[in-house]
């Protein structure tokens, strides 16, 4: 009876997955049009809708192999439910990796995985719960195991989903890079002798991830980011950092020196003398520097004039 239920469940899910894929495949252009229209209807401008367009537009049509793999995976999943086997689990994992080669967008990969593996996850969730419940003797261990079992299977239930504020993991390191090229977007300080130095991540101490701090401020409060108040904020950070810079230390090293806890993003000061006192700062610049095919291009995206007197008020 139970096995029959999972059989129907698998059938229903594979059918849903195929319908979803067909719908996205055939109506991708319409979906883009409808979502863009919906976004503009709510008064947003087109650039905001760009991620949605990227998400929906399929650069290549889904191949027939996608549907074949979806059906094969579902059949194997059902066989695993009937008679669990490590060999079949490894085979199905391998097939998922091949299936992903035919689907371009990660959100669609996640969706298909969710539909195909839902019966398997629910089946094993109940089995694992029963196993741990009978195995452990004392109450506390039972409760702890129940808690972890619930978290474990809940995370598997919605692939790739972690409950905020917890880290959802790096999706995958698929970066492919030309070693002769680079792209840098960050804030730098312009001094009165016209030389520049980077406004380093460790100045934002305690959060020392490169680009994360100012990026977050920009996202949260755009108005503040582009106002003169932001230059005062940078002034404050530089004022805090400067005493340790004079001693050749990072702001994170002011107390413990080289024994201090290392910042998340590496930081070092080969020539600390190049960081001048605060009154010699002329401005702060948000720049994007790109080197591609041997040509270096520099774009100043925004510039904040330094005006200490205004900040003191």
């Amino acid at each position, binding site marked *: 009876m139970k096995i029959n239920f999972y059989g129907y469940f698998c059938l229903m899910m594979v059918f849903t997955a195929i319908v979803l894929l067909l719908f996205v495949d055939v109506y991708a252009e319409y979906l883009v049009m409808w979502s863009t229209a919906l976004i503009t209807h709510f008064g947003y401008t087109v650039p905001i809708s760009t991620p949605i367009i990227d998400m929906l537009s399929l650069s290549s049509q889904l191949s027939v192999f996608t549907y074949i793999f979806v059906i094969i995976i579902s059949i194997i999943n059902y066989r695993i439910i009937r008679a669990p086997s490590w060999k079949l689990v490894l085979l199905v994992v391998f097939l*998922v*990796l091949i299936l992903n080669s035919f689907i371009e967008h990660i959100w669609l*990969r996640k969706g298909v995985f969710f539909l195909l593996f839902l019966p398997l996850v629910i089946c094993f969730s109940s089995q694992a719960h029963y196993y741990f419940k009978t195995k452990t003797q004392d109450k506390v261990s039972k409760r702890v195991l129940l808690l972890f079992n619930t978290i474990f299977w809940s995370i598997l239930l919605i692939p790739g989903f972690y409950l905020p*504020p917890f880290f959802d993991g790096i999706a*995958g390191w698929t970066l492919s890079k030309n070693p002769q090229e680079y792209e840098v977007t960050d804030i730098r300080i312009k001094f009165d002798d016209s030389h520049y130095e980077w406004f380093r991540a460790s100045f934002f101490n305690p959060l020392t991830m*490169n680009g994360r701090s100012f990026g977050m401020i920009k996202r949260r409060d755009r108005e503040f980011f582009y106002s003169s108040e932001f230059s005062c904020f940078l002034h404050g950070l530089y004022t805090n950092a400067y005493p340790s810079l004079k001693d050749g230390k990072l702001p994170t090293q002011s107390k413990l020196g080289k024994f201090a806890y290392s910042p998340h993003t590496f930081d070092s000061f080969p020539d600390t003398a190049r960081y001048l006192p605060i009154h010699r700062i002329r401005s702060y610049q948000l720049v994007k520097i790109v080197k591609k095919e041997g040509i270096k291009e520099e774009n100043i995206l925004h510039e904040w004039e330094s005006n200490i007197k205004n900040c003191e008020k």
Partner: protein
Amino acid sequence: MYLWGFIYRAGQDIDAMFLIQGCLFVLAIVPRKWNTDRYPGYVYSSVLLIFVFYYFFSGVNKIIDLSILEWFQFELFNINKSMLLAEHELKYHAVFEVDVPDLFLIISNYVGAAATYLVHLGAPLLFLYRTKLKLFLYWLFYSIFHILSGFVGILFTANFFIWLVIIPIFPSQSKNRVSTREADKEIYIIYDGECPFCSDFVMASNLRNRYKNLKIVNAREKTQLSQNVIQQGYDLNEGMVVIKDNKILFGTEAARFIALNGSGGLSHWFYKSMLYNQAIANYIYPVLVVLRKRYLKLVGKGLI
């Protein structure tokens, strides 16, 4: 929780390191009276589970999100070279500079990431079948992995230290059990009751769980026993005393006896780690004695 909130508001997610640090903190402040025997086990399992959860699901994500070709597409050393170029030309950021044979580059570029994903996926085995060798190999692998992250300008310092918490350095409790005859023996501990560190050290060991007839004597109370010990030439300002089988253990020996035979929570684990090795304990104990004297002077209390 406040720090987690701060970190999240500042744009960073709560990762395994924050969870483990939080977990250790909570377990450190939970009263040790609660299930003392199993307490170290709970600490150990919780830390291990957090690791297993984070790494395993990170591995699962790689199956869901990546195609087979993308598993072999992380060009670590090309990224490193690109970042080094930016560092040399713009003085931007800092990364480890690498000078390794080409074969290593190829392996790391195309196989390194895939190997890491597989190790992630095997993480539950670490919890279900714990052996010292497996734990050590996992620690070694992730230490190398986190050093390699230095090539893209990131260093996960906490990982190196927190992994050490889950490597069992002491024999298991079952091997450490004593016979009933041993448990019935009379044991005396003579220590300075005015020194909070000494008190915590003695209390944290929960030695009474092991020796039913344990008697803890405050040296400041001038009892007959403490006077006898002083008359025999032991300076209680220079170390604590344990009397067992009419034999006097003094200073480092006494402290090691308490640490190694005790069973307690995190603070006991900390003391035990410090004093576990005889040679290291011989260096550490005199420092602790000096620190005690400094403390007593600072708070205006005299010596015994």
